[in-house]
């Protein structure tokens, strides 16, 4: 089944730097997540740089400023990382086992990019927390997190739902719902000490 093709001499040619191309691709995908519509961009040209950036940003923002240098937020950083990546991998395996026709990395890519709204929510929450604490503060944060959570779900279902057979859609979407719910919970219950 392996097909042998002669490659032309193009390997040595020069062209625009791959870094800018990659950055543009990442930026374009961010736009697609913010304005979700049925399109194939996230699926066709998947890459995992965006999810990595988002994951690191979210993990950094979820740090408690602690005085004790022994517990300098180390476990929480790694925890967030592990939760996000392990959760995404589990959802992907689940959707593949349900008979989805999406590839492993495509699914990881979509799930990772759709964390963008929640990262924005985290940013807003941190800003809101600079003001004085109180029930109003909490209500604002709750509202923001709920809106962004809904946005993430809508964005990811727009990309992922088509890959599942129709009678399994709910089964495939439910873990995604849980995944983003856990992340939203982490964001909402965050309080800097």
């Amino acid at each position: 089944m392996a097909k042998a093709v002669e490659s032309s001499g193009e390997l040595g040619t020069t062209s625009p730097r791959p870094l800018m191309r990659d950055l543009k691709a990442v930026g374009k995908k961010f736009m697609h997540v913010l304005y979700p519509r049925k399109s194939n961009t996230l699926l066709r040209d998947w890459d995992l740089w965006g999810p990595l950036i988002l994951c690191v940003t979210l993990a950094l923002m979820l740090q408690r400023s602690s005085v004790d240098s022994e517990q300098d937020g180390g476990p929480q950083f790694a925890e967030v990382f592990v939760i996000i990546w392990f959760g995404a991998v589990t959802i992907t395996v689940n959707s593949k086992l349900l008979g989805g026709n999406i590839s492993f990395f495509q699914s990881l890519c979509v799930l990772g990019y759709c964390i963008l709204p929640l990262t924005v929510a985290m940013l807003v929450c941190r800003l809101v927390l600079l003001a004085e604490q109180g029930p109003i503060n909490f209500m604002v944060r709750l509202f923001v997190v709920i809106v962004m959570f809904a946005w993430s779900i809508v964005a990811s279902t727009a990309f992922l739902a088509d890959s599942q057979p129709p009678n399994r859609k709910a089964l495939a979407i439910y873990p995604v719902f849980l995944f983003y719910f856990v992340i939203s919970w982490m964001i909402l219950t965050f309080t800097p000490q």
Partner: protein
Amino acid sequence: MLQQDSNDDTEDVSLFDAEEETTNRPKKSKIRHPVASFFHLFFRVSAIVVYLLCELFSSSFIACMVTIILLLSCDFWAVKDSVLPIFLECGSHSQITLPPGSLTFFVPWTPFTVEVNVTGRLMVGLRWWNHIDEDGKSHWVFESRKASAQESKTVSEAESRIFWLGLIACPVLWVIFAFSALFSFRVKWLAVVIMGVALQGANLYGYIRCKVGSRKNLTNMATSYLGKQLLRQDTGDDQTS
């Protein structure tokens, strides 16, 4: 004498087989692309150094972890997008496309880049990427460059050694770190170490697949290498006895 030397080389590391067995051109030992060679080693080695010395440099676990992650990602991107030169002459064929779905169990959770165009490469005779076609099926493509008659693209043995040395030594080191982190219960470093193993291992795997593209598969090559070693062992014993 020259033949003797090249035979000795093939005994040591089978990965240099392709260079020795195909061409009669004189091997250049100067480094053609010092910048690329430097960066290939720089990111990998500095990631390892930061991991080992993090406790000395700063008390912040997060700063170390983020730095290591950044270095590993830069290294992965730089090496995979083939900033490194190796010129291979694989006479038979130079591109292998695997059937769709064949690599779905290959599970490194790492940032791969879908490569659409080869840009400014300092000539990797090897490259590999993932390609999604119109049906939504994903193909993994491993490619190695065919010999060209140009004088400028002769084999550079020094760079080849640098490339493969860096490519092989680092995943091995990260695996050692993984075990040490596991057994000394420094679990918080485990995430970083696993990421290191995954990223560097993935690059290594991809390039080895490119390199052995002209053979049937990796197991055949390993078997033939082991067979060769055993044979040499026997003849060596016969000669000494």
